[in-house]
């Protein structure tokens, strides 16, 4: 009888042990996950944030490139008013006739003024471009702040800096990013210096000599000068780059 009782005890202990082992087997994954959860969540949030950052930078690059092309076609303006139509295309007058007299009076085309126009354009187009729907309604909260952008025209590139506060929150975990920057390779700054020289010559001498300028600048610029009488049309590039900047200079008919 005593031996039977011992067997029963052992059976009970064995069954309990089995249950405990089964319990451990079933809960080990959950427990493991519980212990290792915090770094996974942060890494996950960071991955998501990297994806959003890449999307923002893609839009910054895409929209800046597009805007720079438009600026080049528009002679530094996005929707110019005073233009000459040549080959069916509009060319912005950067030097205009006032009071019917030559030489012309120049539109002051400074880097700062173009940066201002570029900023205004990008301020609208970059947020429109960004496709962040895929990052919303997920298992974390995406909080966004106000988007702001500023650009700097350098000789061979345009630097774009943006601030766009982003916060991804999940429980106690949070990742943030505020600033984004990139540069778009386009020799706008270099071209603007050349354009300034061309307009200065036109505004003072009523003439610009492309060959003499080639000597002066060691053939840096690939210049094409056309005459749509009495106006002049200039198409300016820098050798080694496809970026094009074009504009017109207003003239007066000879008496």
């Amino acid at each position, binding site marked *: 009888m005593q031996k039977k009782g011992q067997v029963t005890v052992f059976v009970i202990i064995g069954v309990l042990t089995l249950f405990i082992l089964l319990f451990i087997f079933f809960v080990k994954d959950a427990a493991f996950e519980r212990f290792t959860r915090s770094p996974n969540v942060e890494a996950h949030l960071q991955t998501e944030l990297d994806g959003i950052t890449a999307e923002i930078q893609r839009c910054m690059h895409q929209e800046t490139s597009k805007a720079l092309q438009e600026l080049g076609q528009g002679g530094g303006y996005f929707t110019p008013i005073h233009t000459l139509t040549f080959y069916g295309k509009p060319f912005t007058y950067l030097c205009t006739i006032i009071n019917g007299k030559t030489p012309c009076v120049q539109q002051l085309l400074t880097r700062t003024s173009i940066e201002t126009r570029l900023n205004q354009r990008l301020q609208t187009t970059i947020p429109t471009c960004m*496709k962040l729907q*895929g990052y919303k309604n997920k298992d974390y909260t995406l909080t966004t702040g106000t988007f702001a952008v500023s650009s700097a025209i350098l000789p061979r590139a345009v630097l774009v800096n943006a601030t766009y506060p982003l916060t991804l929150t999940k429980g106690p975990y949070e990742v943030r990013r505020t600033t984004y920057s*990139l540069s778009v390779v386009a020799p706008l700054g270099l071209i603007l210096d050349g354009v300034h020289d061309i307009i200065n010559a036109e*505004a*003072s001498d009523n003439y610009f000599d492309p*060959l003499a300028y080639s000597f002066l600048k060691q053939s840096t610029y690939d210049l094409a000068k056309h005459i749509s009488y009495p106006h002049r049309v200039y198409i300016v590039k820098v050798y080694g780059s496809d970026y094009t900047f074009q504009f017109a200079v207003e003239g007066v008919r000879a008496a």
Partner: protein
Amino acid sequence: MKFYSFLKTKAIFQILLVISLAFFMSVRSPSAQAADPVPGCCKQTTSGESCVDTTNQSQCAPGKYSPSSCSLTAGCGQTGCCVTTDNQCSTATTKTSCDLSNGVFHEGISCTALDVCKPSCCVVGNNCNMQTTYSCTNLGGEQKPELGTEQACTNYCSSTTSGCCSTDCHYGLASTCDSSTNFYQNIQCSKVSSCKEQCLAHHHKQCGDDGSAYWYDSCGNREETAQLCDPDGRHGPSTQCLAQDTGEVRCQSTDCATTWDNPVVDEAGTTDGGDSTGADLTNDHLVRKNRDSWCEYQAAVGPTLDLPGTQHYRHYCERGQEKVDPCGPDRSRICIYGSVQLTPTDAKAMGICAPNKGESCVACNDQNCCEDPNKKCVWLSSNKEEYKQKDGKITAKIPLTYDSKEKELLIAGERESFSSPDAISKAEFRLRGSESKTLSFSQATKTSSKNIDTYLFQMQLSPGDYTLLACEKSDTKDDNCVIIAQKTITADSIKELTQGKGYCVPFVPPARSSQCTTINSKLVYPKAAYWEEACIGTDWSCTEGCDVYNNDFKKGTNSLCNAYGDCGAKYNLAGVFSSTGYQRDCSPGGASYKDINTQCPAGSGVIPPGTINFEEYKYAKMGLNILHLDMTALSEQGTSTTTILAYSLGGLGGLSLVAGYVGATIAVGLAGAGTISFQAALSAIGYVVSFGSVGGPVGLIIGVIVILVIIAAAVFFYSCSPNEYRDIAVSCSAWQPPRGGADCWKCHTPQSQGGLLPDAFAFNYTGTGPLPQYDCTEQLCGSLGSFCQLTDTPQGPRCVSNDPQNVVPPNIAVKNVVFTCNDEVPGQVGNCNLEKDGKVVVTGELKEFSSVNITLTTMNADATRDEVAACHYALGIEHRDDTFENMKPLEVGNTLSTTHSLSFANIGQNKTINAYILCQDLNKNTMTTPLPITFTSARQPDKTPPTITRFYPSIAYTPALATTFPLTIETNEDVPLGTSGGCRWSSIPNTPFNHMNYMDCSSGTLSLGPTCSTTLTNINQTQQTFYFRCQDTAEPTHNIMQQDLLYSVQKTSALTLNDLHCITPLGNTCDPTMYGTAFNLTLTTQGGYAQGTSVCTYQLDRSVPIEFFVTNTTSHQQPGIRPTAQDHILAIHCADTIGNIANTTLAFTFMQDTTAPHILRATIDDHLLRVLTDEKAMCNYATNTTASSYIPFATTQTIMHATPLPGNTFFMIQCEDIFHNTGSPTKITIL
């Protein structure tokens, strides 16, 4: 009575009618005016432009509209120089424009008058150039305002030695090194012991500013030439350093291997100067060197010759490409070319578009006035040249020219630097040769033009060789004088003309007619012919001077008329003669001469066609080639080629622009100005009577001679009967183009097609790529016919006939139709043919969902030439009777064009498409019957799925960090719209259609099929392929593409920054603490889109970002960063063209070491005196207390210094660190 009453009533009625109409008109008039737009001024437009005249107030930014024109608007009417905050100077800007840019406005002042805008010496490395403050700052240079002249600037660099400054291991001027002891003259940094570890020699090659390839060390210092290129081909073919796509840097040919051979110009200079048939015009195609320039013409050029509508062109070679610079269709500039002598063995072809100043010629009545070099006129006269000689001597003229801008004296090929005009007068110029003379400034004639003062010395000299010496007045010995010129004074060198009747005409006739009538007062010839009444009878006849009634007289005086512009009778470039503009009048002033019609029948005053030969005007031959002038003039004038060339170049303008290049050569010309008259020069090429080869002037001169002979003869002859002198006059007026517009098309048509433009530069422009370089101009168009009118089209300027009597609508021709016939049943297969005679009808059936592209050309009434027109279209048979106005424009903006296209991107299935096209010409003549277009897509069940016809973009590269990529596809048939899954994508091949990702689809347009867009995600691989499929809208079951269509996205590797070095005297690592006054920053980039080619910028302490001095490559350098002595953050940012970016930030403390090295220990070991210092230093010792002569340790410039033990037991030791901190002398006594 009744009758009178009726008249009275009628009169009253008429008076009332007149009054009421007048009242009505006066009332209506203001209202009619009110309808006109009011001119106003946008001080700033909505797009940011300033001071734009407008009639549309909405174009102005809010509050920036002024109701008066800009010239009368405050701020816009004020012009001057604007200096922006970064010192950029802009001349001739408005105050408004300047204010908007926050600049400082200087009203009415030229920027050249402001010091900040004047170029001064800018030192960048060891280069010195004149730059404005703005440019020098951008170059990162140091400005030296005290060096205000180019010479002083150049001297500064040449007189200041260059070398390596070991303070920061940069190679530059000695003056930029903070210590002379650290300066190693003419030694590369890679060879200086303290720099050679961080500055590795021959690290890489780069192109230098002078166009050659140079080695650079790893610190960014330029070393010796790696490959000497020759950008201007001075020693052979022109070559220029260029970086290849492979990254290799080497010289590459920049010659223009073959240039255009203009069929009317002898570019090679092989014309013998004879008639047109003798000109060798087809042998050119010359090889031109980089930046060579020359002239091309459309027809003959020169006095009296240029045809209406023609202009001059300058061509030049740049980087292997022939370029065109039009001088101006109004011939306000003319092209002159020749050869500029750079060295005795090296010449460069150079042409310029010089101002045509011919307008002032007509005011000159004598030769002296005419030959003023500033006027550029030609004296046409019948007078013979005479040399004034006296006692075997001739009158010599010797010019000296002073360029006050360059501060140089210019004479006969030499330049002498004179710091001020006063210095000239302090010098003495002596002539030594057959006679000895001193040139006296007090007796010189001085003329000034801009920066150039010319002193003309005139004296009697015996012919012979002379040497001109420049001496100091105080120095009487010739031996000390500088020989500045050697001249030969021959009898031929000076010519003076006797004064007489002549005409001062422009060198090249301007393309205008404003001066045509101004010479009419000079074209009246009193008593030109002598008439007598027959001794028997009453008939009058001309007996003397009757040649004035001949055609030669008309030709001659017409040539004179031609000379003043587009005046008189002339051909146009198409070879059509117009006699309007010239009229000989045999009875001037209304004189009634008896029997005058025997010589001057009615209608004989004009020049009949055929009198003047077009061939004489067709060929330019060598044109205004100064070299040719030299070839014939040299022997007579004894003057150099360059003298004549530069006379024209310098005098005619463009001097300041070319002077920098041609240097001394221009000076020759200026010095020579005045020694050769245009008369003499022109004589040499046959423009004047004595060598006459050209019909126009010859006739003129003959005419003039004839007149003079007649006048003289008339004095001596009498007749037996009543006789009289009779006057004759010529009326010169504006040339008129031939009536009509039949030749208009030639203006914009290449020569190979019968037009007037060179094929090489007048290709058909298709809307992309560079524009053609020769265009039809307003002037050329207008010269071809009275109805010719220039209009702009997308294909370029077109000259069209705008004949008001033309009521014939344009024709339309079918140029090309692209379609695909159906090739499968049950639809109709075969019998698919195009009928395009007056229609576009495709019989049979076309492949369902295929595209049809139709290209049309509008033509003139007889379908012989293209004609610009606007075309409209309508779709659907119910619209076949629509008016032009009710149809839709084919071209964007309804622009006029000769080529028109209509595209159907997707013709669907089982559809018959009917379209109608109407075109309207410039005169608003509209086609009466539309061009019908009919075709049918295959009538068969839609069993085929759609096809993806295009991906946008076609090639995809993404930055390394990007995981998404936006994409648009175009399909050939309708797909379900929106996000209902018309087209789908997956990153896994053969994904079931219903498991694929949906795209967002939009319906197509007439010329564009339906499009679907998406953003591809999860791009993680270097090359990731995506799979696309679409379904159509067929009912009841959509056809789904069975096969995936693949699209690959190339993911570039990350752009990385490598080899980041901060080069300081202590090393080349970017340490948290760096010592020095400045450091050089170098880095390389790898990966990305183009093997690491990127643009890098840096920002010190979040200031304005600055592009690296050398960037847009893989090796980036920024020399001379000079932070203050404090903590700094330096952010470096690089980006490639597709958006890969690489950033890094350096936080460092920049310190200047102000502590002297301390001697920690001094020991004697193995007969060596050893000293240990607490920092790297240079230690010296002396053996006496006075320390008068320190001797360097044998081993020093480290922390352990050693030197053999001298015999003494007492030493003074002093150490100095590399920042020149010197410690106090330390006394050491050996016990």
